[in-house]
């Protein structure tokens, strides 16, 4: 079995670079075959998750966030999907080459996942309780009675009122927020080391969102978990994440501590993202200063920076050369050829523009 290589990519800041990451993704490539064309959903993604941290993954729709995290657990549908390259190192094992039986022992027990749509992510014809106990019986060898007791405790832990009644109910009897709590209870039932949350709050109301985030945050501390949190919502990132990975066109284009990302973004795309965060005072219709242009067409594979067609700092070199992630002065990493000076000026410029926009 290959030894996890600690490459410069992703292992990032010097402070705790020495400690071995809990989970390392290396050079992940994932394709989908749709009809006659191939969609390159993930293109050489590398990232590290450190012990105890919350890592956020942000990026616009279609940038490969879900696909890459599903690939970690071998959950993308194959076909049409195919992992064409890469490694996922966890606990001295490469999850991508693990026999399926071994991988199943990790799913749910060591690494759990929760999903975007709590309405459809639960089995509609199985009681909530059974959906928890089957996990406990499978991974922790609990007896049914023991599992039931534990499941009720778990429902209580995620703050579902009247858990023993709720145990026997079906998902249609739960509101969206309650269902997401159930999902969390399921995911955390076997004390996993890692929780991957794929936009778990996107489908929920604002107040419910905050509650869910709070529940996860509390339990993370309590259970000593590391969390990967996929989101569209930079507001969530600010309140939750230690570090952030910005994805574009199936690649990581910037990796930074969250504070650095907010105040000193190193990639033109990150700057665009930050600008598209509205201030609360604005009317809804004007809230997005969207980045001009279309997301990249993932069915064609070209040389050069994927952001080139939309980038304000693009120059000739970007057209035919693909930038690699490299350390920037701030401690984070970005995949961009532009000079830090230009990037900084772009940041200031667009900040001013946004101020103007909201002043009007």
């Amino acid at each position, binding site marked *: 079995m290959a030894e996890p290589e600690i490459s410069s990519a992703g292992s990032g800041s010097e402070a705790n670079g020495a400690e071995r990451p809990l989970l390392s993704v290396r050079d992940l490539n994932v394709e989908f075959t749709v009809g006659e064309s191939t969609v390159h959903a993930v293109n050489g993604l590398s990232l590290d998750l450190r012990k105890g941290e919350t890592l956020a993954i942000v990026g616009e729709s279609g940038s490969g966030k879900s696909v890459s995290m599903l690939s970690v657990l071998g959950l993308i*549908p194959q076909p049409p999907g195919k992992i064409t390259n890469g490694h996922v190192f966890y606990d001295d094992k490469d999850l991508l080459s693990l026999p399926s039986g071994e991988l199943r022992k990790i*799913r749910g027990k060591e690494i759990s996942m929760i*999903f975007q749509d709590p309405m459809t992510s*639960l*089995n509609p014809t*199985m009681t909530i309780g059974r959906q928890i106990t*089957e996990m406990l019986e*499978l991974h922790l060898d609990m007896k049914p009675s023991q599992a039931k007791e534990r499941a009720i405790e778990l429902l209580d832990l995620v703050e579902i009122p009247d858990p023993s009644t709720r145990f026997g109910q079906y998902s*249609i009897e739960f509101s969206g927020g309650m269902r997401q709590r159930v999902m969390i209870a*399921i995911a955390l039932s076997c004390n996993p080391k890692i929780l991957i949350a794929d936009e778990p709050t996107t489908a929920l109301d604002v107040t419910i969102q905050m509650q869910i985030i709070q529940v996860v945050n509390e339990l993370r501390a309590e259970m000593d978990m590391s969390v990967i949190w996929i989101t569209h919502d930079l507001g969530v990132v600010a309140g939750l994440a230690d570090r952030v990975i910005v994805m574009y066109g199936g690649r990581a284009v910037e990796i930074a501590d969250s504070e650095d990302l907010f105040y000193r973004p190193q990639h033109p795309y990150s700057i665009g993202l930050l600008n598209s965060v509205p201030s609360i005072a604005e009317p809804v219709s004007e809230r997005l200063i969207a980045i001009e242009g279309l997301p990249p067409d993932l069915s064609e594979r070209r040389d050069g920076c994927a952001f080139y067609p939309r980038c304000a700092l693009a120059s000739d070199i970007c057209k035919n050369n693909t930038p690699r992630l490299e350390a920037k002065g701030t401690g984070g990493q970005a995949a961009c050829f532009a000079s830090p000076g230009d990037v900084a000026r772009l940041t200031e410029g667009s900040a001013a523009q946004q101020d103007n926009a909201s002043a009007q």
Partner: protein
Amino acid sequence: MYKLAMHRLGHSALLIFGVVTVVFFTNFLLGDPVRVMLPASTPPEAVEEFRRQMGFDRPILVQYWEFITRAALLDFGDSWWQKSPSLEIALRPFPATLQLGIVAIALASLLGIGIGLFAGARPGSTWDKLATSLSILGVSLPLIWFTLMMALVFSVWLGLLPTAGYGTAGHMVLPVVTLAALPLGRTVQITRASIIDELAKPYITTARSKGLSERTVILRHALRNALPPIVTEIGWESALLLTGYSIIVESVFGWPGFGFSLYHAILTRDMPVIIAMAFVAALVVVLINIIVDIIYVIADPTIRKT
């Protein structure tokens, strides 16, 4: 749920009423019962006399009213040729048909769901292609030809099974196999399609992310949710089998069942019996629908709560 049940009950009553009415009118309005009952050589005056005696000269709606009010009390009149109540004649052969039907349906359902699940769990594989091809073959079989071929090969050429008749288990084999072929093909197709749809749903990803084996994911999670269209299809095929395929298969194999008797009644133009048999057929369809509904409720416990 209660409302739904009442709605279904209304639909069922209407179905039975509709079928009986249609068969009554096609027989008595489009066909002439007197011509059927009397020899062709009967002199015209005698025909008219007979018509009056039997009350067939009255307006059709009057006759219909008389018929339907009696039918509501399950009196469909006597058979024209055998002097016993039509309903009795219609019901008598039914157990023999059920004997074949239940075995054939059970065979088609169990095998069909099994093969469909197996194929649907590995779409695109060689096994899947094989199952799909065989199912297309199954649904393309012309029953009239298939029955005769089976009889030819297994009874005439190989001499393994009796050609026709009733009594032993050996007599059942060929009718059951021929009756089951088409429903089997359809059950495979619908099961496969339904399970593929189900396996693409998010809750399945959740189930897989829990570390459950694929077997458990399919049998414990997907199957139950995939069941409604499968059960509907099996119900429909059962209705076709009992009221349609049985006519051909029983005629070929000389199986004294419902289909055989119905065909006999049609050939002898025994109108009261034909109508009574249409009534029994409609009743069978209604009963099957009720069974399907019950299985729905078992499969999806949340229906009870709505």
